[in-house]
Structures are given as C-alpha cells and as structure tokens.
C-alpha cells in the first residue's frame, strides 16, 4: 500500500516494524539515524514516518520540524519515553500521532491508517464527512450516528467535526480548544470536558463506557 519510513537506532525494532507493517501490505524503509532519515525522505515515495525520539545524532523533536519542512508526510512518534509533556510537544510541533513503546501491533497499524487517511487528498465533497458510524453534513449542520439524526449545539458540532476530520488521529486539548473556542482559551480544559460530556450523551450508546470518543490522559481526544 504505502512506503513507511521507520527511524530507530535499534535494528531489532526496525525488523519488528517491518513485519507488523507488512500485515497491512506496507513496505518499511529503515533509517538508523536522523541523517539517513532525511536522505530517504528526499529520495521520495514515502507515505508516512514512524519516528523514535531518542536518536543518536539529533533531537527527535527537532527532526519532526526538519521532516515536515522536506515533505508534508504524517509523522508518528514511536517513543519509549512516557513523558506527557514530550508527547504534547511533539504533537504541537506537527507530529500526526504517537505510539508508546512497547506498542500493540494492531494499535500501531490503526494509527498508521488514520495518519495516511489524514494525508490523503480531500474527499470529492468536503461538505460530507464520515468516520465509523458518524456522518456529518457541514453545510446543513446535520449529524447522524448509525443513520440516527442527533441534534448538536454549534460547539458540539464544531468539536465533533474537528475530531471526524482528524479521522482517528489524536488531537491535543490545546489544539481542540484553539480550533473551537479560539487561541485565548487554549488552557481552559474544563470547557472541553463539558462539551465532550454533552457530546457523548448524544452520540455514545453507553455514555459511561464511551466507545467513540476516546481520551488519552493529559494529552487529548481521538475518535476510535
């Protein structure tokens, strides 16, 4: 399907990634450091990048910016560091998503699929959005779950629309707040919590065990 550039200094991880990616028919291109990664990227044909932040030759966060400057490919951070601030920093710097080591193969493939979708060309009609059971008609301000119409307030609609457009990629609290409420409210997480809860009551089968709108503690929300 796609050529995925895997950047990691551990050969065993690179081999593992190649096997996992092959399950979805992707071809893995290996790079052991930042220099090799940028070189492979310039050669072209790369659909997405799986990037370890602890590289021997340069800072991983810095490399995200360098990669995005060469080609607008989605970058998924694959890191052993569980530090929440670092993940948020990577996402704010333009990373499409992140996966923490040790990772689940299916989860990794789901992230790659979501990232590749986000990078694909815009659908024929940008007014009609879909993700899983959700259908949205932006021009008519209509949303349906499994064919059932749900009435949403403007804020709920705006929030759901951004999540659907991200297509399963994680969006940080800051990014969601900025998109729906504006830059001045980047820190007001409780606004987000209130609207997410209201949205869940309308779109989830069981709002106490949400299946659609998932939370990553301290980081943000994504659609399943």
């Amino acid at each position, binding site marked *: 399907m796609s050529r995925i550039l895997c950047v990691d200094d*551990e050969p*065993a*991880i690179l081999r*593992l990634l190649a*096997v*996992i990616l092959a399950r979805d028919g992707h071809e893995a291109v290996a790079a052991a450091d930042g220099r090799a990664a940028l070189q492979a990227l310039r050669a072209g044909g790369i659909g997405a990048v799986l990037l370890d932040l*602890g590289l021997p030759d340069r800072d991983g966060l810095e490399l995200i910016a360098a990669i995005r400057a060469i080609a607008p490919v989605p970058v998924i951070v694959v890191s*052993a*560091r*569980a*530090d*929440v601030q670092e993940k948020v920093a990577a996402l704010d710097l333009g990373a499409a998503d992140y996966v923490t*080591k*040790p*990772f*689940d*193969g299916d*989860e990794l493939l789901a992230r790659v699929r979501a990232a590749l979708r986000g990078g694909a060309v815009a659908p024929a009609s940008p007014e009609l959005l879909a993700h899983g059971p959700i259908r949205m008609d932006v021009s008519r301000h209509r949303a349906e779950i499994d064919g059932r119409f749900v009435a949403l307030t403007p804020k709920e609609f705006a929030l759901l629309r951004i999540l659907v457009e991200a297509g399963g990629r994680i969006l940080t609290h800051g990014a969601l707040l900025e998109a729906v409420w504006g830059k001045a409210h980047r820190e007001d*997480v*409780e606004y987000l*919590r209130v609207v*997410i*809860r209201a949205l*869940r*009551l309308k779109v989830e089968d069981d*709002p*106490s*065990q*949400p299946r659609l709108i*998932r*939370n*990553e*503690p*301290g980081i943000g929300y994504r659609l399943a």
Partner: protein
Amino acid sequence: MTSRAASYLQALVAVAAIAWLTTAWLPVLGLASSALLFLLPVLLASSRGGVGPGLTAALAGAAAYNYFLLEPRFTFRVHQLDNLVSAIMLCAVAVVTSRLATRLMAREAEANERARASEEFAALSSLLASGSAEQVLAQGLEFMSDRYGDTRLLDQGKLAAGEAGFSSLDISAAAWTIHNGDMTGHGTETMAAADWTFVPLAPRSRSESAVAALARPRDGSVRAPAQLNQIRQLCLLLGQCCDRISLETERREREILEESDRLRRTFLASLAHDFRTPLTVISGRLELLARQSPEAKDALLAAQRLDRMMADLLGAARIEGGSLSVACENIDLVDAVSATCDGLLLPAAIHLRRSIPPELPFVTADPVLLHHILANLVDNAVRHARSEVLLSARAQGSHILLSLEDDGPGVPQAERERIFDRFSRIEGSDRTEGSGLGLAIVKGFADAMGMAVTITDSRRGGARFILTLPIAPGQPA
C-alpha cells in the same frame, strides 16, 4: 591637666610681655593705645584656653595696667572711676570671647566627628562591596574591631549553644536585640550592666536572627550616644553583607538541587528507554506468535507486567526523589476510567465491570498521576480476583468515592495499614506477581494530590479499595 595649667601660664606670660612692652614704650604708644594692647592677651587666652585663662589674663592685665601705667605709677591705687571701668571692660571681653571661642571649637569638633563618621561609613561600605560576601564580612568585622573593640556576629544558634565569654545577662541582652531590634547592653538604656553592646543588623521593621556584639571599651569609658549611633549605622552595613551571604548560599543550594534533579530525570529517562526497547521487541514478537499459538498470550501478559513494573519503579523514584510535580485540572472520571480499562488485556477468567454514572461532577486531579493510580488499583484487583472486579463511583458531600472491589481473598484487618508500604505482601499469600511497589505508588501519588485511599471489605468477599477525590470547584456536588 598639664595643658590647662599651660594655658594659664601662657595667659600670664602674655600679660607680662604686654606690661613690659607698654612700660618701656609708654611715651611713644600713649596711654589709650597701651590699654588697648592689654586686650591682646585676653583675646588670646580666652579663645585658646576658655573662660578661666581669659579671666586670669583680664585680671592680671587690669592689675598690670594699673600698676605699671596709671598715675601714680607702680602702685595699685585707683584714682579715677574710668580706671575701674577699663578693668571691668577687660573682664567682659574675656568672658564674651571665651564663650564664642568655646562654641566655635565645639562646632568644629562636631564637624570633624561627622566627617570622620562618614569617612568610616564610606570605608566600610567600599570594603564590603569589594569581593565575595564571606571574605568581606570577615574584613568588615576586623574593621569594626580595630575601631570600636572586639566585634563578633552572634546568631541564635550560637546563643543557644552558649557562646563562650558571654554571661547570662549578655545572652538575654542579645536575645532582646534579636527579638525587638533595639540596641542593648553596655552604653545603652537596656541592660546597661552587660559587658557587651549588642547591635541589630537590620532596620527595626525586619526581624533578623543575627546580632553584632561589641566588647566594652578597654579603657573603662562608656560609649557616647553619638558613637553608638555610628556603630548602629555600620552594623546595618554588616547586616546587608550577611543578607548577601544568605542569598548567595540559597542560590547555590537551589542550583545544586536543580542540577541533581536534572541528572536524575535524565538517568531515569534513559533507563526507561534502555529497558523498554528490548521489551518492545519481546512483546512485539510474542504478539505475532500469539496469533498462531494461544500459549504465547501468557508470555505477552508477563511482558506487559514487566512494563508496568518499570513504570512503577520510575514512579517510586519520582516519589523518593521528591521531584513529583502535580498539575491538577478538571477531569471527567468517565475519561480517567476508560483510559485505564479500554484495551486492557485481562486473564480469561476475570471479568471487569464498570459502573461510573455519566452525570457525576468533574474532579480535580493530575490526569497522569490519576491514570497511574487507577492502572495499579485495577491491576492489583485483577491479580487477586477469582472471577470479577467492579469499578464504581458515587458522590458524597464535596467528594467522589471511587471504589474497586474484587471477589478474591481480601486483606486481613491487621495488614491494611502495612499494605501500602513498599515491597509488602500479605503473609502466606502465594500471589507473587506484583512488583510490591504498585500500592505504595497508589498511596504516594494520592498523597501528592491530597487524596485519601482506604481499604475495607467488599460485599463480594474480597477487598474494596476506596479513592476519595475532591469535586472540582464550581461543580454541583
């Protein structure tokens, strides 16, 4: 005494000289000019020696004038009233001149004293500003000792230890100065019988824990108020120097602390990285194997447990190192519980049930720490349960009680305190899969966020852990 006698002698000598001069040159000078010349020794004596020598010169001059110059000459007889008037004139001049001279001299002395004081102030402040605070403070004390006698700095620690050479009166005087910011001891109005004078190091408004002590002057004299005032000003300079020292020390200590904290973080981060990289390979390969042979699932569960242990070790190191920073925000418990339970790999025989009402008010917590707490509590319950674990929550007053029940063997009453200690396991328990850190971290993180965690019996027969979370402000309770 000798200088006083000398000025009387000078007055008499001067009068004698004028008497000799006028007697010898009377025909040339005339009587009136000669009389005026007798003013000279009076002015001289009264301006240099004061009233006594001045009056001596005036009386001696009047007598000499009468004896040597007035008719009948060489007798003390007074013929005319104007002779008496001239004697009185001489005395009056002597008194007035000496008064003026005395006042001038006092002014001059005062000005000299003030100049000297400001010179000393300038000298000490330039000394104290010139180098590292510790060094110059020692030089400043030396400066004070040279000018005002033995000077020391006393802080409360030294006083409490009973610094050698201080009587109990001295110690009370020093304590008074520290508490009230007044000068006490020798030369002052408070506890004047003390051997030392105690001077505060800071203006009255600030409480200071140190004080300067100056020994009583060796010559037995008592310090004048002006000198005490001067000493007080100089001690304020010393106080500023002490402030500089404590600021520098504080800054150095903070730097050392920050540096060691940074080193520890770097070390823990690289430890986690080095540990998780091979673990990723192991669990990734096991996951692939488990697709073909279900037995590999046990190994996969074990690998996941290893990762949780690593997280626990890192958590324990953060609690231990005191570098646990808490960033609380409003959290929906539905989010926190879902993030913990979704995608959790459970042993086949165990069922995890959740009952979190979706309308519960938000709580205040650090999302990352709370996630770790819940993961450990769920892990603990799953490991001890026979078939079922129940996660539920309800509001009570201004708190939400999150409860985790299992149907396992439970925790005996005697063990309930101890179970949150590190590496503690229940006596006789054959379950040895935990790291022994999980519940200690639950307790440590809960403490850091100001939450309580307790154990009771579950109606299902097993243990029931209750985490008490504060409801976020502005929420309906």
